[in-house]
């Protein structure tokens, strides 16, 4: 009697599992398919997955989800998007755990390419970083240059407890940019800024979460303009500093070098990157979010290579 009841419970659970296998078309079947993928890539069969490690801003804004749907419409592939900071994405790339990187830290990208881990970088979008903070602006940085704003923030924070800065603190592209601004403002980041007091909060999370945290603390933080606009409705922070060459934020996509990691899905990786720089998709990027947020979250790289300081090839030439 008892055991029968247990058996019944077990059956119900098993049924639930099977049901899940069918409805979530990505359970059972895909798991086996992925394991088989590395051997398939060599043959003529179309690879089914493309693993993309991306900076959180492209994902948090919803841009990638939009592009993913468009790409999957006419390609026989499932994009698997792993949103991590640029630092972590580069780490995944160096370990050969993904096929494509979409990141925004030119300096570290250059090192990555020089070391032979990645090839065929193309820039596909850009926007600007901004320093956002509470509307009351207790440190009074509105309208300053980024460097002056940072000097003011760190000086004010010593005496005014209302001046708090939240940092990504996660080696992401945004964090790298913040460090670069500290350096050009004349501070040694590791000794004078990081861990230097309660005013400097290292959140260790993605861009969206960091904006939310800064909002809760009524603190200052550095954000890319895209994520800020996407979150603007939920938070009270306002952009205080948004002009300065140092604030340019360039998004690049690159393939993992198949000579380093033979199993990567380089065919589809190439297709994806070339897809990103087509005039059609560049227009999609330019229009993304305009309806919802009143202004674009990202600008297309097409035709703007001079602003970006890259070669026209890097912005416009498809990978052969």
């Amino acid at each position, binding site marked *: 009697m*008892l055991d029968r*009841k247990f058996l019944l419970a077990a059956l119900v659970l098993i049924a639930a599992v099977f049901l899940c296998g069918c409805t979530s078309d990505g*359970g059972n079947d895909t798991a086996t398919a992925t*394991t088989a*993928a590395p051997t398939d890539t060599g043959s003529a069969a179309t690879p089914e997955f493309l693993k993309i490690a991306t900076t959180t801003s492209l994902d*948090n804004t919803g841009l990638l989800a939009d592009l993913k749907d468009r790409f999957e419409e006419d390609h026989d592939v499932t994009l698997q998007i*792993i949103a991590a900071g640029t630092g972590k994405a580069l780490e995944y790339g160096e370990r050969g755990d993904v096929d494509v990187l979409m990141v925004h830290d030119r300096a570290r990208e250059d090192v990555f390419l020089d070391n032979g881990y990645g090839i065929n970088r193309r820039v596909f979008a850009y926007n600007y970083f901004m320093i956002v903070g509470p509307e009351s602006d207790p440190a009074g940085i509105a309208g300053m240059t980024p460097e002056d704003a940072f000097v003011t923030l760190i000086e004010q924070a010593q005496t005014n407890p209302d001046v708090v800065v939240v940092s990504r603190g996660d080696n992401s592209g945004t964090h790298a940019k913040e460090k670069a601004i500290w350096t050009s403002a004349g501070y040694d980041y590791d000794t004078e800024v990081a861990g230097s007091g309660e005013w400097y909060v290292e959140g260790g999370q993605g861009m*969206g979460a960091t904006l939310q945290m800064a909002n809760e603390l009524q603190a200052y933080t550095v954000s890319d303009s895209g994520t800020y606009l996407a979150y603007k409705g939920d938070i009270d922070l306002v952009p205080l500093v948004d002009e300065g060459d140092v604030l340019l934020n360039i998004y690049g996509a690159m393939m993992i070098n198949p000579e380093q990691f033979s199993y990567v899905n380089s065919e589809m990786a190439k297709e994806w990157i070339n897809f990103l720089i087509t005039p059609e998709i560049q227009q999609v990027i330019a229009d993304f979010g305009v309806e919802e947020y009143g202004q674009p979250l990202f600008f297309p790289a097409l035709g703007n290579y001079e602003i970006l300081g890259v070669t026209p090839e890097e912005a416009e030439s498809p990978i052969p």
Partner: protein
Amino acid sequence: MNEIIDGFLTAIHLIVTFDPEVYEVAFRSIYITFSATVIASVISIPIALFLAFRTFPGKRTIINLVHTLYALPTVLIGLVVFLMLSRQGPFGFLGLLFTPGAMIIGQVILVIPIIIGLTYSALVAMDPVIKDTIISLGANYFQFMASILKEIRFVVYATVAMAFGRAISEVGAAIMIGGNIRGYTRVLTTSIALETSMGNIEFSMALGIILLFIALIVNFVMTSIRREAD
């Protein structure tokens, strides 16, 4: 306060209207954790029997170790499994990183100590008379083990339910090993973490309520089995 009430109402709406994304994530969670719990049970229960009825040098140490591993930090599991399954790791050739299979492996490791430890405790606490009776009835090795297990089956059910609860509510390892890929390795807990950071509080609440609901069902099944026994 409004946010919490609104979130709760929207959550109920998402649940009763069978929002496909909410249910997909929920079923994936159940699928992964159910698989992990079954696999871990099959591995752990024989080990618990072995530990309980055999004496060998170092046994005390092993049992202490098992008890210590109850508190195994899930992020540590996440890190170790990541390093093992990464392409640069010893099992990288399997291509398992960022798949549901990898998440199952992580959860198996998480709950094995719990199942071994609690089953072992039940076996040790068992009345020795029962043991002697079974042996005196002339049971062979497997019959003996089967009878013993039958004696403590309610403890085993409860243990397995507890392991299930621990695994399904875990987030640290799931995000590191699975990568939180939408439609593939995104489960209830990783989804709640992400959606909250994206400001989708209602969606997070709906997922949280479902998570709680699953725990409730598991608990209900277990108590009704035990009530039947009394």
